[in-house]
C-alpha cells in the first residue's frame, strides 16, 4: 500500500510553436518534436501528473494563444494541464480556461502589470493562476575578489546570499527585479503556484538549479515547480529531496525518448520520493 501523502509531480512541458511541439536550448535553436495532442496523450498514458503547454512564439509575434489546440487537448486529457505564453490580459486567460485549460501561466505581462495576477485570481481562483519566473543568477565574482569582499562586513550579505534577476520576453530582457521578492509579491497578489525556470540551467541537461529552487521552495507558501536542467533520475531526486521542489518540469528528456515518465517515476520511487505509480 502506498504511503499516504501528497506526491511530487512530474510535469512534461510541451513548448508549442505554430501548432507543433518544440524544445529549444535556452529558447533558441528549435527542433521539431511532434504534434502536441499526440504527445500529450502519450505522456498521460505514461503517468504524467500534469502537463504544461507553453506557446513560445506568442510573446514574440503578438499571436493569439492556441485556443483550438487547447480544446483538442482538453477533450482527450483526464489529467490537469496548464497553458502559458502570450497571456497578456484577463481576456486571454478567460479564453484558455474556457477552452479547457486548468491553469494559465503568466510571465512577462505580469511583470509589466502585476495587477493581472490579482485579476485572474479573483475571477477564476488562485489555483489556476501560475506565475512563471525566468530567473538568472546575478553575476558571480571571481573567487579572489569574492574572498576579499567577504571580509568587508558591509558587502557580506550580497556575496553570501545568492540573488537572481527576473528575465522577461523569452529571456531577452533583464528587469533588474529580484526574483524571490517578485515571487513573494505575486503570491500576495494571488498566484497559486510558481513555475521557476533557471535561465542558467535551462537546456543544459546538467541538473536542476538546487540553490535557486530551495530558496523559493522554502521561502514561499505556495507550490514551486522546478524547471531547467533536467537530466536523469538523480537530478529529480536532488530537486525533490535537497531543494524541496513540489513538482519538476522537463521537456527534452521525455521528447527524445531518453526517459519515459513511468520509468523515471519508478526510479524516483526506489530513491524514496513519493510519486504516483
Amino acid at each position, binding site marked *: 500500500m502506498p504511503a499516504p501523502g501528497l506526491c511530487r509531480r512530474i510535469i512534461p512541458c510541451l513548448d508549442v510553436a505554430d501548432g507543433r511541439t518544440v524544445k529549444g536550448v535556452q529558447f533558441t535553436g528549435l527542433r521539431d518534436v511532434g504534434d502536441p495532442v499526440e504527445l500529450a496523450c502519450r505522456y498521460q498514458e505514461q503517468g504524467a501528473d500534469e502537463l504544461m503547454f507553453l506557446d513560445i512564439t506568442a510573446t514574440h509575434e503578438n499571436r493569439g494563444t492556441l485556443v483550438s489546440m487547447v480544446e483538442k487537448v482538453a477533450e482527450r486529457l*483526464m489529467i490537469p494541464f496548464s497553458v502559458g505564453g502570450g497571456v497578456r490580459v484577463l481576456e486571454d486567460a478567460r479564453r484558455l480556461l474556457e477552452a479547457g485549460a*486548468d491553469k494559465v501561466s503568466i510571465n512577462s505581462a505580469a511583470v509589466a502589470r502585476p495587477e493581472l495576477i490579482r485579476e485572474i485570481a479573483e475571477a477564476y481562483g488562485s489555483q489556476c493562476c501560475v506565475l512563471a519566473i525566468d530567473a538568472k543568477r546575478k553575476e558571480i565574482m571571481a573567487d579572489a575578489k569574492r574572498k576579499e569582499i567577504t571580509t568587508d562586513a558591509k558587502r557580506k550579505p550580497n556575496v553570501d546570499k545568492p540573488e537572481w534577476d527576473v528575465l522577461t520576453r523569452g529571456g531577452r530582457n533583464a528587469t533588474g527585479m529580484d526574483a524571490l521578492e517578485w515571487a513573494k509579491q505575486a503570491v500576495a497578489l494571488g498566484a497559486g503556484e510558481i513555475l521557476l525556470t533557471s535561465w542558467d540551467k535551462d537546456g543544459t541537461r546538467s541538473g536542476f538549479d538546487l540553490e535557486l529552487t530551495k530558496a523559493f521552495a*522554502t521561502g514561499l507558501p*505556495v507550490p514551486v515547480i522546478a524547471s531547467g536542467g533536467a537530466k536523469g533520475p538523480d537530478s529529480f531526486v536532488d530537486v525533490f529531496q535537497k531543494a524541496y521542489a513540489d*513538482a519538476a518540469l522537463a521537456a527534452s528528456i521525455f521528447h527524445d525518448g531518453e526517459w519515459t515518465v513511468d520509468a523515471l517515476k519508478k526510479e524516483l520511487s526506489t530513491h524514496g520520493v513519493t510519486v504516483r505509480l
Partner: protein
Amino acid sequence: MSSPAKKVDVVDYGGGNIGSILRCLDRLGFSYRLTKTPDGKTPLILPGVGAFGSIMGNLAKLELKDRLRDIVKSGTPYLGICIGLQVLFEGSEEAPAVEGLNILPGRVVKFKSSPDNHSAIKIPQIGWNWVQSASEKFKKDGWRNGYVYFVNSYYPAPENEASVLYRAAYGESFAAAVQHENVTAFQFHPEKSGAFGQSMIDKWHETLALH
C-alpha cells in the same frame, strides 16, 4: 444490478471549470443538461472550483440555495465535487459569516501550514494524493483506493464520522470524500484524476440503483 440511464443535471451556478466535468461526462457516455433550474428528479452534479463565499452568493442569487436543499432532502441523488462538497456543510473558515447549505453537520476548515518549514505543507494542496476508503462499509461497497488529484486549501470536517467515504493525509488526516444517504461528494477532482478518477463517476452512478 441494472444500470440506470446515464442521465444527470449539472448545476450551472457560475463556478469555474464546469467544462472539465462536461467533457468527462461525454467520455463516459452520460447525457446531461447544464442548467440553472434542476428539475429535482434527475441525479444532480454540482462541480467546480471557487471560493465558498462567492459560490454561496451565486447560489442565493440564482435562488438555488433553498431549492438545492429541498431537492437533496427529497432524496434525489447528489454528487458534489470540490466546492460542490464544501457547500453541503454548515459553513467554512473561508467565509465565516456565510451560511452553507447545511445539509451535512460539520464545517469546512483550512489546512494548517507550518510557518517554520514552508517546504512541508503548501497551501493550496495541489497534486495527487492517496485516498483510502474510510470504513468497511465503503470498502464492501466497492470504493477502491488510489491516487486522485486535489486542488484545495480547505477540507470538510464532518461531525458524522460514518459519512466519511475516503480519507487522505496532508499534514493531518482529512476527509477526502463523504457519502450520506443520497449525497456523495468528493473533495478531489475525479474528472482530472485519470482513468481511476473518471471511473468514480460511473461508480457513483451505478450505486444509485442501490438506493
